């Protein structure tokens, strides 16, 4: 025979267990919803309905520090920003391949956005070939030089191999690829997760605007 006190205690414990079970079930459902909502639903592939066009990529090689021009055929959207993003995505897909000569993990999803806007005038330029260039002031029409703002994902910067050469090659190949496909892009600025960043992975300087013409293939 159990006493009345034991009966009450047992009832309370059963009730508490039931409440905890319900609370745990609710938390499990919320965590599941959070995971589903956290997935990147942004389109990372070019729409297949777009016609295939040729894009010029400047592909880096770590072994000799060189960059070679490679022409790829891929479907490209009409919007210039989306088009630039798809082209850079293809370039980074090449770097994410297992046998890449310039291995960088991440692939196409590493480029969050590419924005194009009129290029501001620069007072000091850094050109390796000793040919100072001063881009003209921004024009109101759509024929002047453009500044491309490339927004990279934090995971791309965090997983990028660290080193002067490998980081420099990544920056130069992105700048060169943009200029090769959009000749009006003369300047490139990098953001990571929408914020300015001092370096890509500890070495390559991302704090200032890069001149795309420096990395463009020589004619």
């Amino acid at each position, binding site marked *: 025979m159990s006493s009345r006190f034991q009966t009450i205690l047992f009832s309370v414990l059963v009730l508490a267990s039931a409440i905890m079970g319900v609370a745990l079930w609710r938390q499990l459902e919320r965590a599941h919803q959070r995971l589903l909502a956290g997935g990147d639903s942004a389109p990372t592939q070019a729409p297949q309905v777009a016609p295939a066009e040729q894009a010029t990529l400047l592909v880096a090689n770590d072994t000799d520090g060189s960059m070679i021009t490679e022409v790829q055929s891929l479907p490209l959207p009409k919007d210039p920003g989306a088009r630039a993003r798809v082209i850079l995505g293809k370039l980074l897909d090449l770097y994410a391949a297992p046998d890449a000569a310039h291995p960088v993990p991440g692939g196409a999803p590493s480029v969050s956005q590419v924005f194009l806007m009129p290029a501001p005038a620069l007072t000091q330029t850094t050109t390796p070939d000793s040919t100072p260039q001063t881009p003209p002031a921004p024009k109101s029409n759509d024929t002047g030089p453009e500044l491309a703002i490339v927004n990279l994902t934090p995971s791309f910067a965090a997983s990028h191999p660290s080193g002067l050469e490998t980081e420099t090659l990544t920056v130069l190949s992105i700048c060169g690829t943009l200029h090769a496909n959009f000749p009006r892009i003369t300047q490139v600025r990098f953001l990571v997760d929408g914020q300015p960043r001092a370096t890509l*992975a500890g070495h390559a300087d991302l704090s200032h605007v890069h001149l795309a013409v420096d990395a463009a293939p020589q004619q």
Partner: protein
Amino acid sequence: MRWTNCAIVVFAGACQLAGAQAAPAPAPPPARFVVVLDAAHGGDDSGGKLSTGQSEKAFNLALAVRLRSLLGARGIQVVTTRESDAAVELDRRAEIANHANAQACLTLHASESGSGVHLFSSSLVPTEPARFAAWKTAQSAYVTRSLALAGELNSALLHAGFNVTLGRTDLPGIDSMTCPAVAVEIAPDHGPGQKINAALDDPAYQARVAEALAAALLEWRSDAGRTEAGRP
């Protein structure tokens, strides 16, 4: 008055004689030849992670210490930007280099990417030296000498059998240095088929790199005796 005139004449004659004797003398070696060794990263900034688990900052410091010993043994004065695992700001490194009034400044890096030794000079546009220079582009007056120093290092490293790549890039630390400056990045030595001939943790490999860099700086010192290196 007469004695004063005589003294002036004798002094002038002595000066002319001294000038005549100094003119044909060969150019003396530089009175002081200073090399700045800048082991990159340090403190909270570990740099890259090497395959052996060692951090880049430790590798850079070890190489700087080894190179300092080699240069010291050859009579070259060395100034280092850090002697321990300490965080040193890029501007502070440039300040140390500029105060040293050095004839060569090497920033040492290491990476698992690529092969051999990578030499980088500033991508600033070369300019004429001026009395006052902007801090962030002070290197521009020395870019020509920096490229010459990179060429000297390239020759010595190639002679020692290394695979060398040369490049130019934006280097925030070096861009403020008023000396011939080159960033030296050491990578594993890869053979055909990406086979690793020598890893970064190989002491013999590190010694070979240090010896080649020291040989290049010795040659650079010889050149400095002839052309007043570091004085654009």
